[in-house]
């Protein structure tokens, strides 16, 4: 049974969401819903402190509590939970990565996604509507065949489609031969899709809280306290020093800043990556279309908004907005594929700070500082890995040693040369 079987002392038992509950609350004028998570005062000491209350951090806390029986845990978030990249991505979930190491990691996440709403008793609106990765030239198609074959050998679903099959799946896409970058075909992962990003953060927060994890918002970590080469706690701006036996940093774009507090550098550059949402329109797209060569991707949300993304700014930046030239470039790419959306208004645009590594793969690892662990470097593709990332990082934090999935993603691979070169093999190059 996935839901908590017991609560920590003093923690109110989480009431289960159900259809019957909906009716009951409707009759009570929706005024008696249980609070989703507490707003506790931080303790002086925790077994494990997780810095960063995004999807990955909350998932880590949830799986630590659920799988490893650790409940004396705090998640420290400088803003509000899910207010960073978790709420700023384009919600795409897929696992069709080329190399074994990455494929195992993302497929691990995919399997967790498939049962996540049940596991959390919270609807994360995971919709396996499929993802198309388009090919526009012969080399694209060769790469697609290679990737689909590699995926199948790793037990990941995938198909190579021709242009006609693409047109059948996405009738509004310009698949004619007369375009500047004609669609020659695509790779198709039917199990891929989208999930509601806020719900993922809320679901994990609610789940972790019900086990007794303290979620401490509006608390910024300003330093990492190190004694004799080992991390012993974090300095916060609002609540002073919070001690911990182990510290896990899951702070995406700000990972380099935290590493700086601990006195080492990461092989990471932080860049703004933008997403765009249009005004809601009638349903025109019931899958996800990504194109590496034209360089853009688009899906349609349940509300009817077109959800669009593309490339990162070419320079280091921590401003969560992104630059104008990239907006123009993205719109060019989308209109190349979907000329009929040229009159659709863009409603909103925002940026998240992605932590890009040289090999486009994450770092889930011990660090030069003892008892300090990092889960970072997810770059432009972290959302899809949320449950898997939390699952393996929880394992690392609980045991102190990486498991088989996490092991290749260690901090030292950039020095010994064992990089996992997913760059260019991912859906959209950044």
């Amino acid at each position, binding site marked *: 049974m996935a839901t908590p079987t017991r609560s920590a002392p003093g923690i109110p038992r989480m009431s289960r969401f159900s259809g019957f509950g909906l009716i009951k609350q409707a009759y009570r004028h929706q005024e008696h819903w249980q609070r989703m998570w507490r707003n506790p005062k931080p303790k002086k000491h925790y077994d494990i402190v997780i810095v960063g209350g995004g999807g990955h951090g909350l998932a880590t806390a949830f799986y630590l509590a659920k799988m490893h029986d650790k409940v004396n845990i705090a998640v420290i978030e400088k803003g509000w939970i899910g207010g960073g990249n978790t709420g700023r991505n384009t919600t795409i979930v897929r696992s069709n990565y080329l190399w074994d190491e990455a494929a195992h990691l993302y497929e691990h996440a995919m399997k967790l996604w498939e049962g996540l709403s049940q596991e959390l008793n919270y609807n994360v609106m995971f919709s396996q509507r499929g993802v198309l990765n388009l090919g526009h030239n012969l080399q694209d198609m060769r790469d697609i065949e290679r990737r689909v074959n590699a995926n199948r050998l790793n037990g990941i679903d995938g198909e190579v489609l021709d242009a006609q099959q693409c047109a059948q799946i996405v009738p509004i896409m310009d698949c004619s031969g007369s375009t500047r970058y004609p669609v020659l075909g695509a790779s198709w992962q039917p199990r891929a899709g989208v999930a509601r990003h806020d719900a993922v953060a809320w679901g994990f927060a609610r789940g972790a809280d019900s086990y007794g994890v303290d979620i401490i918002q509006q608390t910024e970590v300003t330093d990492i306290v190190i004694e004799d080469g080992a991390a012993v706690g974090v300095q916060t701006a609002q609540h002073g020093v919070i001690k911990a036996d182990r510290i896990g940093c899951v702070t995406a774009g*700000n990972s*380099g*800043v935290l590493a*700086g507090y601990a006195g080492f*550098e*990461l*092989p*990471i*550059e*932080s860049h703004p990556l933008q997403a765009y949402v249009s005004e809601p329109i009638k349903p025109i797209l019931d899958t996800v279309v990504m194109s590496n060569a034209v360089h853009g991707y688009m899906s349609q949300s349940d509300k009817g908004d077109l959800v669009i993304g593309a490339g990162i700014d*070419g*320079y*280091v*930046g*921590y*401003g969560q907005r992104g*630059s*104008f*030239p990239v907006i123009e470039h993205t719109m060019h790419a989308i209109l190349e594929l979907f000329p009929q959306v040229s009159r659709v208004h863009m409603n909103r645009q925002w940026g998240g700070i992605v932590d890009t590594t*040289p090999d486009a793969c994450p770092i889930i690892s011990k660090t030069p500082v003892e008892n300090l662990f990092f889960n970072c470097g997810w770059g432009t593709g972290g959302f899809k890995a949320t449950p898997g990332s939390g699952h393996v990082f929880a394992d690392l934090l609980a045991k102190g040693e990486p498991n088989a999935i996490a092991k290749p993603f260690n901090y030292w691979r*950039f*020095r*010994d*040369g064992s990089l996992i070169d997913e760059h260019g093999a991912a859906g959209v190059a950044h």
Partner: protein
Amino acid sequence: MFLIHCPYCEEHREEEEFHAAGQAHLPRPLDPDSMTDEQWGDYLFYRKNTRGEYRELWVHAAGCGKYFNVSRNTQTYEIYATYKTGEVLESTSQMSVGPTGSVLNYRTADKEGS
């Protein structure tokens, strides 16, 4: 949108004419063969990635094609100064910053490694 002062063209130009080329002042090791894997890895991949004042290398790709250094705040996106490669920038606290963030008082006498 940046307006960047190219120290070679001596004009402000639009961001679109430039490319960022990563952290500045990373001199290529003179004798790579004698380096350990750790030193070589550090040189290739590990970066300061500062949130705040950061020194970067940019190239005026669509203009004069020259590389130059930029001192920029990665949080506020304010450009403090641009200066030629081989020049040394005084501390930013004493810098005189113009209306578009690029008027500067940097020292040009000293040469540095990169």
